[in-house]
Each structure stands twice: as C-alpha cells, then as structure tokens.
C-alpha cells in the first residue's frame, strides 16, 4: 500500500515536472520567434494623411531593424490593420491583434477618438500600447498600466501656444475658436481653462461647425469683442482656412496662434491669397524646425536622408509624422533589448517606466511609474505656419 502511494506521488510529480518543462520550453520557443507588432493605422478615410506618413516611419524602422539582424536575433513582424479612422473598426482590430494574432505590442490607433475606445481593451489584454493620440485622458499609469504615450499631450500643445501668445507676442485679449466635434469642443474648453488659470479671461469664445461654409461673422464678433489674438483649436483644415480667409478679407492683421493643422499644406490651397497665411503661428516640434543656419537637428537630418529615396526625393508632408512612426518601433526595439529579449508585458512596463532621456528622432523620452507621458515640453516650439520647406518649418518670431 505504502509502495503504491509512493508510485502515485511519483507519477503526479513526474506529470508536474513534464508540464512545467513543456511550459518553459513553450515560453522559450515563443521568445525565440519573431516579435509581433500590431499597427492600428487609418491609412484611408479622414485624417489618413497623418497615418500614411506615420506608416512610412513605422515601415522604415521595421525594415531597418530587420536588415540589421532584428532585435537580439529576432525579426520584427508588423501586422497592419486599416481602421479607416472608425472607432468601431479600431476596437475590432485591437481585439483581433491582441487575442487572435497575439501580438506583443500595439502601436496606435492614430486618432484619439479611436484610442479612447481601444486603450481599455488593450489594458485588459495586457498588451503594451504605444499611444500616438494627444487627448490627455489616454494615459493614466494606474488605469492603463500598459499604455505609454509617445506623442505630446493636447495640453502641451495648448500651453505652448498660450505661452507664446501671452509671453512672446504680449497679447492677452484672446478669442478662442473651437469646432463642434468632441475634440474641438474639449480643446477649446481646455484652452480657456488654462488661460483662466493664468489670470486671463478670453474676450470671445465660440464653437463652429467644421463644415460651416462661412465664418466671417464669428471672426467679426471676435474683433468687436476687442480680441488681439485668435487661437483656433480645431484639426479641420476647411474651418482653419475659412478663419484665415475671413481675417484676410476683413483686412484685420491680428495674429493667429493655435493647432498644428494651421501649418498643414492643404491650408495653402484653400486661401484666397497666399499672404492670408502671414502672422500665423502653430504649435510644432524642435525636431522639425530649422535653426538659424537653416539646419535640422542631426537625428532628423539623418533619418530624412536615409528615408528620402523611398519617398521619391521630395518630402511634401509634415515630417514629424514620419519621425513619430519611426520612434515607436525604435522604442519597442529598445524595450525588448533592455528586458533581455523578453516581450512579457510586465517586463516591458518595468523597462519603460524606468526609461529616462531615451533619445529618438521626434523627441527624447522619459517615462516613470507615475507618468506615462514620455514627450518633454522642451521638444515643443512654435512654428511660423507658412514656412513649410521639405517637411519642416521655421521657428516663430514675432
């Protein structure tokens, strides 16, 4: 009987040992396969121009890393899904990438509205998520422990622009114009709140339907209210162009300071006259700003020259999108290397939370256990909106 009991114990022990060994082997085998990265992009549909440029950076970084032998010998495998900018599709693809494709990382989605829907899902799935949307609520170290933001926050854009208008231009009679989309309305309110915190009450504040065909009345109301600076917070090219046209048609030479979309190239073609783009300043980046000698930061210049042949020689879109996409993949490479080849979400989290001054092209990143926003204020700058040249801009001077 005693011998029989021992035999059972031995058999159970053996089974456990074999199972453990198999599990360990499986885990080891998984770590040896390619590193699978999900990329939730919106390559078609509204705002696709940003996504297409970001995709160039992502693809280029993957190709570059794989050509150099991968990350510790493991190749990167990119699985791209086109969300068309639709949050429902983004959610479905996020689930597919996390649960069916079993990716180790997810980059995106591109638009904040989509990200707001996917971040909770990816948190539950324990997939490290590199956030490239600016809405402030997308990162919260406690609520979304595996979400790390690579891009700046909306607040950084707004604070930067507010600072420029008030401290540099010395204008404090602010007219805030937002649009009626969720993003536009929230940004306009945020901008007003930040101004009021610094003791400035906007003299005029309005939300406009982004498809409204004429905004002359609103701009006239801003002028009648005594505004000496207009601050538009909208990503709608059409609305921004109409604000610039209304200001120009009224021959009201007041500065416009605001959202980066103010320096987007599509604006140029919508203006009644090219000079209507003068005296316009947009929140931008040090990485894509020429210095006094007309040179870009070395990392940007290097990436630009490496990728230029793939772009057909000319860069006719804002280059910071490419730099952002490129950096997301390089951050993954860095994290896996620092985690000794592990793609375990907790190992990656630990690495990223202890990352300080990681030098990228788009910015130099720092994440802590308390703050998952990696983009520093020092990487921001105000650009002259009408100075686009080869993907970059001139720094704003009053």
């Amino acid at each position, binding site marked *: 009987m005693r011998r029989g009991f021992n035999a059972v114990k031995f058999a159970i022990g053996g089974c456990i040992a074999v199972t453990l060994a198999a599990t360990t082997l499986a885990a080891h085998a998984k770590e040896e396969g390619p590193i699978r990265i999900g990329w939730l992009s919106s390559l078609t549909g509204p705002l696709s*121009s940003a996504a297409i440029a970001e995709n160039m950076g992502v693809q280029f970084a993957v190709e570059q890393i794989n050509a150099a032998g991968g990350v510790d010998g493991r190749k990167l495998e990119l699985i791209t899904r086109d969300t068309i900018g639709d949050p429902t599709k983004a959610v479905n693809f996020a689930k597919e990438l996390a649960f069916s494709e079993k990716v180790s990382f997810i980059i995106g989605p591109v638009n904040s509205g989509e990200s707001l829907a996917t971040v909770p899902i990816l948190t539950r799935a324990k997939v490290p998520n590199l956030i490239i949307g600016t809405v402030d609520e997308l990162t919260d170290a406690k609520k979304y422990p595996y979400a790390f933001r690579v891009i700046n926050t909306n607040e950084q854009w707004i604070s930067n622009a507010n600072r420029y208008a008030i401290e540099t231009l010395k204008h404090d009679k602010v007219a805030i114009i937002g649009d009626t989309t969720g993003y536009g309305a929230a940004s306009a309110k945020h901008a007003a709140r930040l101004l009021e915190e610094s003791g400035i009450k906007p003299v005029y504040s309005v*939300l406009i339907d982004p498809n409204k*065909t004429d905004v002359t009345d609103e701009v006239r109301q801003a002028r009648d209210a005594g505004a000496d600076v207009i601050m538009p917070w909208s990503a709608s090219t059409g609305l921004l*162009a109409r604000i610039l046209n209304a200001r120009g048609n009224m021959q009201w030479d007041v500065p416009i300071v605001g959202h980066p979309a103010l320096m987007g190239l599509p604006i140029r073609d919508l203006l009644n006259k090219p000079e209507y783009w003068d005296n316009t300043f947009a929140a931008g980046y040090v990485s894509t700003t020429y210095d006094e000698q007309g040179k870009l930061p070395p990392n940007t210049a290097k990436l630009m020259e490496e990728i230029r042949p793939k772009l057909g020689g000319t860069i006719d879109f804002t280059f910071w999108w490419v730099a952002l996409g490129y950096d997301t993949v390089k951050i993954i490479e860095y994290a896996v290397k620092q985690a000794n080849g592990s793609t375990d979400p907790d190992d990656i989290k630990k690495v990223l939370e202890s990352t300080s001054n990681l030098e990228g092209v788009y910015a130099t990143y720092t994440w802590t256990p308390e703050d998952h926003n990696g983009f520093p204020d020092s990487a921001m700058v105000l650009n002259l909106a009408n100075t686009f040249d080869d993907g970059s801009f001139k720094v704003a001077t009053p």
Partner: protein
Amino acid sequence: MLSVLITGLAIGALYSAAALAYNVMYSTSKVLSITTGHIFMVSSVAGAFLIGDLGLPKVVGLLGAIVIAIIFGLLTELIAIRRILARSEDHLWLLSTLALATIVQQSIGLWWGTEPRAFPRLIPQDFTAGIWDQKYWLVIGTVALVALGLDLFYRHTLFGKVFLAVAEDPFAAKARGIATDRIRAFSYGIAGFLGGLVGFAAGQLTFAYFALGLTLTLFGFIALAAGGLGSNLGAIVGGLTLGLLSTFATYFFGGEYQQTIAVGLLMLFLLIKPEGLFGNKQVRHV
C-alpha cells in the same frame, strides 16, 4: 448683422436648391433619394478639378460639371431606382440610394482626398468685397434663376405639363400614352442639371469637399419637410428659413446649437404641421 443675413440667405438658397432637387425627382418617382446632396458635391468637385487641376476655361468647367452631374442623376435613376421600383412597392429605394450615395462619396474621398479643396474664383473681384462677395450672390442668384426656370418649365411648356401629369397620377398618364419611365429618368437628369448648376455656383462657399453631399441631403430634406413635400415654393421658403435660422442661431448661441436647431425645426413641423407650410394634406377617401 447684415453679413449674418446675407450668409444665411446664401446657405438657405443652397438648402432650397437641394429641396428643389428632391421635389423634381420625387414628383415622378415618389422617391426621396439620399443621393440628392451628392449631386451638388459631384458638381463642385468636378468644377474644381476641371478648372483648378486641369486648367480648363471656366465655361468648360461649368459645362463639364453640369454634364457630370446630369450623368450622375441619370445613373442614380438607372442603378438605384428603376429596378427597385419595378420589383417592389416597399421603400427599398432608401437603401439602394443610400448605398449609391455612400459608394460615390467614398470613391470621391479616395480619389479627391478627404480634405476640402479650393474652388476657383469665377469672376474677377477683390476678396475684400464683404457682403457683396460673389460667393454669396452667385448661389443666391443661381437658385433664384433655377426656381424661376422650373416654374416656367412646369407651367408653360408641354413637356412640363407632361411632368405634372405623371406627378399627379402616373397610371392615368401611362394610360394616355405617356412613357412614364422615360419621364422619370428625365426628371433625374433635370435634378442633375439643377444640382450641377447650383453646386458649381456655390463652390466658393462650400469648397470642393467629399462630405458635402450628406450635409445637403440632410438639410435639403429638413427644408423640404418644413416647406412641404412637392411644393417648390415650400422648398424655397423652407430652405431660406432653415439657412437664416441656423446662421442667426450660430451667431447668437454658438455653433454647438446649429444642428439641434435644424433637427428641432424638422421635429416641430413633423409634430405640428406634418404636411409642411405649403404641402398638401394627404387625405385618403374611403
């Protein structure tokens, strides 16, 4: 305040034109096509492409935009209406026209881009003309001409009277030897002409923008519901009322209330006067 009035009139005229296009198609087919606003969008994009991108003369751009809009109108009837009406009495045209509108909008979005693009200046004029700017008056004037032209067509031409006969009673018209199918197709061509002309005239106001169609489909419908389905006078009054109301509402209360006020107007008429201001009550004799 005068500029708010002129802006409201111009936007209202555009809504009126969309409501008129609805009426023209509805009169012969009893279909409220979702593609109505898209006719205007197709025309403005075609005009911007022909003049802005290809550098063709403005007259050629105008004619090209109108021809393309007419073809789109005729194709709508052929693809999304004719077979549906032949097979079913149900409102399946709602789905077929929605499908066609979506296909056209997305295709143009893919080809033309999803950002609004500029429409060329049609008449040499400085941009500082204020309320006298052509972007307002071209659309107001064109819609006035179109409304007058439609009235003359219906009242004073034999062909117009044939239209009215088909609109009144298609079965009786058919019994009198009128080719009702052909008249229906022709009405979609006329809607194409109307939308093509006004869409081109309003191009500077709307820009050439792929998502314009759905906005005009919605606001044109609200104008029609307010003015009265089937009434051209109602379409004009409904459109102008809606345009002025939404512009003044935006001026006084901000843009966040614009849609609410427009849809509120629709609800108000549906509840209090469902036949609209100038529509006929649907009375069924038993």
